[in-house]
């Protein structure tokens, strides 16, 4: 009895993951990407003077700084990277 129940939930889970993979995964991936753009835009506005683009008065930039620390490296890498048109394909 128990064994059957377990099988049932496992099958349910598999179906759920299949549906997720087919229908949702791309949407989530796309959303995550947009979310990253938003995060980087936010960082550009608040910490722009790190790249020589002063936008927000520094007093409040510093307030935001601690939360941005883990993202700073990837943000700078993305902004400083050389680009060409093939970038937009991915």
């Amino acid at each position, binding site marked *: 009895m128990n064994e059957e129940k377990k099988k049932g939930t496992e099958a349910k889970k598999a179906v759920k993951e299949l549906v997720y993979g087919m229908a949702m995964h791309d949407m989530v991936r796309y959303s995550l990407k947009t979310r990253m753009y938003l995060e980087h835009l936010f960082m550009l506005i608040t910490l722009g003077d790190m790249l020589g683009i*002063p936008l927000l008065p520094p007093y409040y930039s510093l*307030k935001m700084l601690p939360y941005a620390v883990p993202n700073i490296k990837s943000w700078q890498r993305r902004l400083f990277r050389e680009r060409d048109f093939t970038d937009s394909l991915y």
Partner: protein
Amino acid sequence: MAETMKEFFERRPELNCIIFAGKGGLGKTTFSAATSHWLAEQGKRTLCFSTDPQASLSDIFERDIYGKGIQSFAPNLHVLEIDSDKRVNEYQESIRKKILDMYNLKELPKEIDEYIKAAASEPAMHESATYDAMAELMVKRDHSYYVFDMPPFGHGIRMVSMALILDTWIDKITELRMKAREYDEAMAALRGRTEAEKEDVILKELTEIREKLDFFSGVLTDSKRTAFFMVLIPEKMAILDTERALKMFDSMKLNLSGIIVNMVYPPELLKMKDLGDFLKHRIEMQQRYMKVIWEKFEPYIRAVVPMYDREPKGLKMIAKVAGDLFGWKLER
């Protein structure tokens, strides 16, 4: 007919933020102290706050209060003179500590440390720190009256314009952050979770800043709650400067609440027989400019305060100035 200083305060019971602006050396700090003294005497809990980087309330009250937090030496009268250098340093330290604690680091990454140093040395940093201190004080609402003694540059009005710009900035950034939050929530839903994984701490921090700034800029632009006074002396430069300031007020859609004319030699002295030429000429010159001042600024004039035979320093002299400032009546 011009309202006197006393009438002005009596007719505006909602008033709680008083700002003295104008050229340096004309007596802004003296009048800030005198106004605070008078209000405290009326039984109102009053805080006198100097935002001038050159310590001056210490001189006027003849106590060393610079950078020592809120001090009190008369009933209801509280005085605060912030050391903005110290404040900026402490602020920097707190940010460093926060980063170290948040990520369990022993020392800061080099570029972040450099960034903190560079940001703190920007000129706007001190202004923002002072402004933030003002906003923080007002949000607490511990006092019935806040009297701000502004630094001379830009008539202290620049501080207000900065406030409004900052306010808009923070609003915009918060909007952006909210959008990011929407994405978090949508993704959580797509992945079959009901809530986004974690609360957005940045949004929380931004909302806190925004509420503080919104409140303060709301007070500053409300003529029922905030009064701007300018100090003027009967000399050409000061008159021209006041005209410019009036234009600045207009362009920012703020109202100037009043002008106080300071350092006026008593014209009765002219009747004295043995009055020297030096004083005589000076008094005559002042009287000529007084006429100009009445013509140009009559609706704004709230008081005319005399020149004293000694520097207005110490509680006793401040009480005297307060008496002259709030006891002035138009004699004609």
